[in-house]
């Protein structure tokens, strides 16, 4: 992909990232942080790609470790965020 395309995507994504969270209330800071944290677990995709390509044992070991770590990040992140938000659901119900 051309450099300018990548830079454009990067710049636009920065704006999207800024805008979507800029109005969050402080109550949601932790779940938001935790959810964003889970999203970067998508590095799992990268880990899988390098693991598939690995030819030496060294490469394979490192990339398999990366797969494990990324999976923990992604799966654990979404589960823990959901647990936090479970309680908010109750709150909304109680608030109504």
């Amino acid at each position, binding site marked *: 992909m051309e450099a300018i395309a990548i830079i454009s995507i990067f710049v636009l994504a920065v704006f999207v990232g800024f805008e979507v969270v800029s109005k969050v209330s402080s109550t949601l800071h*932790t779940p938001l942080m935790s959810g964003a944290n889970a999203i970067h677990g*998508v590095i799992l995709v990268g880990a*899988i790609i390098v693991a598939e390509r690995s030819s030496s044992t060294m490469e394979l070991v490192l990339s398999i470790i990366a797969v494990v770590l990324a999976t923990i990040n992604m799966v654990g992140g979404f*589960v823990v965020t959901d647990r936090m938000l479970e309680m908010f659901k109750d709150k909304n119900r109680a608030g109504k």
Partner: protein
Amino acid sequence: MNSFLYDIIGLIAGVCFILSLKGLSHPRTARRGNLLGALGAGIATVIVFFRADEERASSSNLYWILGAIAFGVLVGVPAARKVQMTAMPQLVALFNGVGGGAAALVSIVEYMKLGASASTAEVIATVFTVVVGCVSFSGSIVTFLKLQELMTTRPVIFPGGRFVIAANLVAVLAVAGWVISALGTNPLLILAALSLLFGVLFVLPVGGADVPIVISLLNAFTGLTVAASGYVLQATLLIIAGTLVGASGTILTRLMAEAMGRSLFGTLFGAFTAKPQDSGGAAETRPVKSGTADDVAILLNYARRVVIVPGFGLAVAQAQHTVRELADLLSAKGIDVAYGIHPVAGRMPGHMNVLLAEANVPYEQLSEMDEVNPTFPQTDVALIIGANDVVNPAAKTTPGCPIYGMPILDVAQAGNVIFLKRSMRPGFAGIENELLFDPKTTLLFGDAKASLTKVVSALKAL
């Protein structure tokens, strides 16, 4: 799979992430937002196995990979499910750290593969990922240790600390330059080691109270490393997802720091500029007024307005249901009851809201700091349950102490102040609370839940 189709599905996953962050910013849609994010991540993970890539088809590593994913799930899910409410922040820190570590490893392996064929831009991106990913990894581990109280929560400063950290930084930059100009796997590993050290040194001096801010910052860092490794791997989805997290994490860090009344700079480097304080052991011999559950019940019974200030101790004691019982009892007696929620009470932002919501405390009774502070002069009793730092006047009066400048709940303005805690030990920030020695303060020692149960029965008996 056709590579265009693959890219389009990847973009759909990216859109899921955007909608996820958007959803997470509003209470009503937060849960759905998180599920959307999980959906996006799931899509991305599944399709990567179906992409058109020669190297992929011939790969015999597939079983290893699937095994590793299964193992990751087996570790991650139970950890996330079983963790106590009070320990969630450190779990998030840990998850963030392993993500950063994964990104660094991915870049290292890719670099081994590319070798000399990497373009300068790719090498720069690799170096960036390794440095920032490693800092995020080791920094997150230290925040984990701090929050889990496996090490002191106070700023750790050693003599000459700022020179050590500066030297470390220079070394990181020098080796980074070396990798970029000379290439080679070994310099990259040295760079990783130096960056790991830097992550530790970077987080050690941060005061415990500022740890969530640092977690959020490291989270943004990890996002950027994922974007950079997306560049090296030519995976648009990683660029989009990583940048999104990087950008939103940066804003979130700023918002959090604002909520705690801290500047980001002060959070990170405050410990270097402020003079270290000792907690003044002498003060602890001063007299305090401690009371019984009956004393507390009487004070409450004759109040017209009571503000309950919950803190971390309430979470530890799991006393949220008992608190609710007490509040209901007081309300039934016609007493005006409100909860004063400090934005950083507990160990994560929003901690108290979550906890009290769990106990079905009506949302309207929860008042934010700015709402409740002006009402303290008309409040007869401020009942502080397992909170300490968030009501510590030192934040106003003692420049240089770790919480100086943080806005606090002005309980000292209330007619009477009651503390429910187990001892005279200080709170998270590790500083003495002068308010404990104030003549209008009554202390009821003991576990918050036990004490509250006694107060409730005493009130019923009145």
